[in-house]
């Protein structure tokens, strides 16, 4: 287990290092002039020169990369180009919103996906199975932003017009101020993310559980007279959950993308929306900061998932 952990962490570090190189290359080495961009359109050549010097752009690439990495490691991600706010504090402000969105959605999509998958698998080819399979294919094909827009129109707008103002159109209410308002403001964003992602898990759980239920040890368990419910949920589901854990690790990276989209549709000022705003304003330090931070989060989360995976399935540790 220790060896597995060490190897997994090393790979994570390699990924992080590559990400830092890539971000650095995209923003500093790419054939464009950072100082020019930062200085704005009306800058005099002297200003550009000053900025270039202050950013250390007149030094060697290796030296620049070194400064870039050491600053980032010391928690210094620079300052917002427009308001002079520290990028770290922008990120700190956005974290609770993005985390509320992502965590709530993960819980919802994992439970929805696994539950539907089990329901499908215990009665293959039944009406319930067929409708769940059709529904998951439908949501699997649905782009996240489209589902968000449709929920916004049909659930928020039509309901509100009809006199049931249950959900706000967007925005974010802090959990500490008003827990109920927090949940209400997040129900539609959660649903948007969860329905699209749950579809994959329904398909995955169904397939894996159907495979597992055909195994000899399941027949043995049945022969011992264990109830069908226990056989399915305890003996079957445990090994059927391994591909689910793998997929969850893969989807964490994709979740960041989903978060960007959902935050944009529902006007939540989380990391994703900040990143999009920063891009539209060409606010480089903010873009770099968010990309670095989010990538690190994904890499760390991936390691955690892999460890959970190794706990779930002892075979993983061996190879």
């Amino acid at each position, binding site marked *: 287990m220790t060896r597995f952990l060490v190897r997994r962490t090393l790979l994570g570090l390699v990924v992080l290092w590559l990400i830092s190189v890539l971000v650095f290359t*995209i923003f500093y080495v790419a054939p464009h002039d950072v100082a020019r961009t930062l200085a704005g359109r009306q800058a005099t050549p002297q200003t550009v020169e000053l900025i270039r010097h202050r950013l250390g752009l007149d030094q060697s690439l290796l030296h620049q990369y070194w400064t870039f990495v050491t600053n980032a490691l010391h928690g210094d991600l620079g300052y917002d180009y427009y308001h002079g706010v520290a990028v770290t504090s922008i990120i700190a402000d956005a974290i609770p919103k993005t985390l509320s969105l992502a965590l709530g959605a993960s819980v919802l999509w994992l439970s929805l996906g696994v539950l539907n998958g089990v329901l499908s698998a215990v009665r293959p080819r039944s009406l319930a199975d067929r409708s769940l399979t059709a529904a998951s294919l439908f949501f699997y094909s649905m782009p996240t932003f489209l589902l968000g827009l449709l929920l916004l129109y049909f659930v928020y707008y039509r309901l509100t017009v009809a006199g049931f103002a249950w959900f706000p159109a967007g925005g974010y209410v802090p959990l500490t101020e008003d827990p109920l308002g927090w949940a209400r403001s997040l129900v539609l964003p959660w649903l948007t993310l969860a329905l699209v992602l749950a579809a994959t898990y329904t398909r995955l759980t169904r397939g894996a559980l159907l495979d597992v239920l055909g195994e000899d040890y399941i027949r043995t368990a049945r022969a011992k007279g264990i109830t069908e419910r226990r056989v399915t949920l305890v003996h079957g589901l445990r090994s059927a959950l391994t591909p689910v854990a793998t997929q969850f690790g893969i989807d964490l990276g994709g979740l*960041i993308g989903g978060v960007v989209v959902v935050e944009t549709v529902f006007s939540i000022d989380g990391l994703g929306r900040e990143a*999009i705003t920063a891009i539209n304003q060409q606010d480089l330090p903010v873009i770099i900061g968010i990309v670095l931070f989010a990538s690190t989060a994904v890499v760390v989360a991936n390691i955690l998932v892999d460890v959970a995976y190794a706990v779930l399935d002892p075979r993983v540790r061996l190879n």
Partner: protein
Amino acid sequence: MTGSTFVDEHPAPAAARDGGPARVAVEGRGPWRLAWERLRRDRVAMISAAVIAGIVLVAVFAPLVAAVTGHPPDTQYRENGLTPDGLPVRPSTTFWFGTDDLGRDLLVRIAYGARISLLVGVAATGLTVVIGVAVGLAAGYFGGLVDSVLARIVDVALSFPFLLFAISLVSITGPSLTITVFVIAMFAWASVARIVRGQVLSVREKEYVEAARSLGASSLRIMVIDVLPNVLAPVIVYTTLLIPTVIVIEATLSFLGLGTPPPTATWGGMLNDSVNYYREAWWFIVFPGLALLATTLAFNLFGDSVRDAFDPRAGRGST
């Protein structure tokens, strides 16, 4: 993960069972023929193929749609295409699908949008598959150091937060069709490479590969002539399922303003414009949304059928 379901290289026995009632003299039918025949008999496959063909026709004949309605895609009808308040007008005999926020004909723009979706879908998928197959072939065939290095690169590529890098890259280069294709391929090739590598590992030990090698065939020749055709089935299945994913990514990038820039009509871009008008103009969300959803759904259904055709034991019919 999906790749592992295709280890069945000799579907012939299953086919013999299939052909049972037909009592035709036993005739050698290759796996390709068999897959094709299964696909032909699959009603869902034929219907989704017809839908895809319809969308392709609309895309190809988009100028014809513009000619029939008399509305070029980028022309703004400020008098009859907008209400006195400057809002989109609803569907009518003049504008069958209504207009957008600038008074442009939605139907015509949806037809032109199909071009971008399909073009990016096919081009990015093609590039992805070419890179993925090349890397996977090399890694699997040569093994050893080449394999270790390539496998690590694949691991790293798979754990990158894709959308964030797309965002960073586009923020530097500016959005364009080429960048969209490039960005998607840059991040999608790794899963193809992984699938191909796994397949090549089993094929390269076969006698016919050894025979070719002992006859003095070059590595390149063996890879292309002997190995590639035998790993093609899972690649084709994966490719058909990759197209809808790529179409969704393109739409998402356009929705975020990072895809093909306006005034070019894209489904994602149209849906982005509709965000501020969903209260007044349902058609502005519903029609582009339906076009996008119908496309991804048809490709996913077709992809599932192709998978079933190559491996009847996997997918819908599995027990």
